[in-house]
């Protein structure tokens, strides 16, 4: 992947973006056990496959979610967080 589509600014070279890691849903800190929280903080779904990831377009300051296959490094879609339905 050398190009990435920012949902706001369109397709841009990858050098303009910063990878923000896998998006993981946080457990409820009020109710979850220490173990569940530690798992959320430290562990990752490391196996290859389609993942939701945070990406940041630097020049415009836009965070968004990219659905990317980490095996083939191909992005199937990108959208602003929470706007998955409209994407």
């Amino acid at each position: 992947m050398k190009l990435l589509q920012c949902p706001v600014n369109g397709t841009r070279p990858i050098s303009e973006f910063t990878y923000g890691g896998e998006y993981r849903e946080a457990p409820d800190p009020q109710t979850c056990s220490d173990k569940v929280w530690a798992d959320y903080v430290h562990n990752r779904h490391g196996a290859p496959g389609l993942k939701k990831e945070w990406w940041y377009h630097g020049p415009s300051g836009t965070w968004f979610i990219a659905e990317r296959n980490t095996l083939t490094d191909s992005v199937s879609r990108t959208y602003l967080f929470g706007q998955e339905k409209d994407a």
Partner: protein
Amino acid sequence: MTLRIAEKKGEWINRDMPLTFTYEGQTVQAFEGDTMSSALWAAGIKVLGRSFKYHRARGLLSFANHDVNALMTDGVDTNIRADVIPVSHGMELFAVNTEGGVVKDKNRFIDRLSPFLPVGFYYKTFFKPRMMFPFWENKIRKAAGLGKVNFDYPRQLRPKRNAHCDVLIIGAGPSGLSAALTAANHGKQVILVDENRYAGGSLGYDHAADSSTSDKLETLLKQVSEHSNIRLICDAYAGGYYGDHLVPIVGKEGITKVRARSVIVATGAFEQPPVFRNNDLPGVMLGSAAQRLVHRYAVKPFHRGVVVTANDHGYRTALDLAAAGVEVLALVDMRQQSGDEQLAAAVASKGITIHLASCIYEVIPSSDKLGVAEVVLAGYDEQTASARFERSSRIACDGVAMSAGWAPAAALLYQAGTKMRYDYAVEQFVPAQLPEGVFAAGKVNGVYDLALRLRDGQRAAADAVRYLGGQDVEQIEVAQSFQLAPSHAYPIVHHPDGKNFVDFDEDIQVKDFINAAKEGFDNIELMKRFTTVGMGPSQGKHSNMNAIRILARIRQLPVEQIGTTTARPFFHPTPLAHLGGRGFHPHRLTAMHEWHVNHGGVMMEAGVWMRPAWYQPQGAKLTAQEAVQQEAMAVRKAAGMIDGSTLGKIEVFGQDAGAFLERFYTGKFADLRVGSSRVALLLDEAGVMVDDGVAARLAEDKFYVSTNSSNAATVYREMQRNLQLWGMSVTLVNLTGAMAAMTLAGPASRSILTELTELDVFEEAFPQGAIRTAEIAGVQARIMRVAFVADLAFEIHVPSSSALHIWQNIMKTGQPFGLRPFGTDAQRLLRLEMGHHLISHDTDGLTNPFEAHAGGLLAMDKAFFTGQRSLQILAAKPLKKQLVKFVLDPGFSAELPKECNLVINAGQITGRVTSIAYSEYLNRVIGMAFVAPDQAANGQQFEIRTDDGLLVKARVVQGSFFKLSAQ
């Protein structure tokens, strides 16, 4: 005796521009346009280099940029590829990697030792006894490498260019040219590149004595050059294929990064040598090399020679050679039958004897071992790959042209992710499944007939145009028509005495493969690594295919089950300067940068910024230590000012601004009064301290937040992310660059400020932690009372555009008060005197707030803040270390411990010094250190080990350093 012949139509030399150069001290005449090799060859000089391992004499092999045995140095540059680099007037060339000259190379004796140097010999010896290895290693290193690097070679900056196109076509041979025309005619913007000086590919040299070929080429080239949609780039190669059709085109002057919408690979094929004893002698070369020599440079490869072939190309070569006046004594065809009847008839009509089912068993070298004297012909048994002597004969000659087949120049296709399959019809790997937007045409696609290649180019272009959305473009079919494959399935002749070379870069012979397999290295990747086949500078261009064929025979497996090795970038070795580009690493400069420099600022890199570490006052000759103490003393006794523009500066506003900061930082902000500020400690999810800044409330719905200089970008980014995640009604503005900041500190600071602003800056009206907006020297500023470096200090934020004006005004106004600028070194000392830790200086990537006495900044009773849940877990665990303040004994005068000296307790490491400095103001050595929790009580002593191993006693201080008694 010269080998130069009469002018050839389309030749690449300019006979009007003769030139002279020297090679190994000998003067040589040539023409402009000659490559080093062609010039030397024309002059009858055939020893162009020595081989890497055995130091055998080598001449021309490919004439296609993989003659890695003919590397030159001109005294400035090294490893110059003589086969393709033009010679220029006055050059003084020498072959690399010889001792005592290329002809008399002292290392040529190694050739005779070769029986002692079996494949992988270096794994088997030199290490017993252990102490002998350095001795042998030294010898091996001396023998290693090719040319010598010139340490005075000037630094090159080679800016890169970018280009875009619809269709990038790599290779301007017949298929590439026709693809370009087709794509361009469909309105596509085309870039067509070729590594040769002129376009045309095999049309320029593979004529089989048919003079109409050059006319065909001329017509094609004319059409291409006249087409406004085609940009033709010659003398530049595609270095590699990278994701999303990014291809760096490497030219003499630098790299053009082409981003294409589609790519057609029409890179042709590399001719492959048949393998027989002494197939490496100067004078033995590939058929296509001989053709290039004739047609491009008008040089005969030899006077009287033999063509050995295993395909029709050898017949074409024989015809071209005959037409150039070479006496072709025999055409030795390893196949059972010849292919194209017309070709065979044409060859026969020249009086050339065709020997079918025959091979060259060996070449007999001339007595000096520097050239060809005779070839030994024999029958060839394909099954056993051995010679049959019932039909053996000898022919005296001075050269051999060899054509056994081709290997697709498929490196770019592999890099793009193409799946290749072995096609028995052509005895070659061809693309089976191409990635999206990538197409192949011509020989690389297994198409050899000229008419078909032209059509295959059109076909690939039509496919590309359709891929780009041209649905109405008709699909083109290319029929394959072969009698016999253009490549031989096994052009290898075994010989009991070896020296039948497969890899000319690395001097690997047939038996090396057999022996490697015997030792268990019998899959292609292991074999490659054990024998080093294909690992040399030509990257296996002439050797990998034969290696695969040999291994397939050994394993009794079909070729496709052997597979290929991966073809990594670069297509040709690519200069570091080209890749490095401009080599420009920008620093950010503050608005006051120039002022600092002019006032003796000793500038240091601080993250992306340059900042003054300290100042050398005009005319003074202070040591850094003296300057730092003076600057700090000024702050304590009068006033000082530091440029703090590098701080991160973020405006947070909107209805949820307070609530947002409460989630983001550890402290409380919702209840913060307008006009005041609080420390903003940021943790990561694991509870590790990441940043501490200040958040000041400008209005109910507006905060101004500062961050540490080094974290400015990351904190802003994290704010933005969390904002999205939490979905709050907040707007963020990053003012880091737009705003400058300076801190005016010290007892006199208030008086200085009073002269420049109407604002009431006295304690009542402007207490610690307060923020005010007011004019200073006519500029609207935000002023904050912060106490990082001194109890009385004002942090002044103004637009960067007026920062220098304010700075200069304050400096001028402050002069009578003893105001001095101070740098980051004094700042660190002042901050230490104040007892404030510095995140990522006094803390590390694992420090949590409990360990750094930052518990007071945690509002654990809040509903949520980042890192809170982890802190709850950590709170239940015993502390492992604690950050404490310490002093050394008064009057301590021995070697000062340094930052990162260890705290030692009973022989164990219990911590380390994170900050330490002598404070002239306190007249004490003070510092901070991590210690074990049971060493952290006020007044407790611990020991620091210095560089010299001395143990220095230190005492924990829990209150302010300023309250220290002299004890």
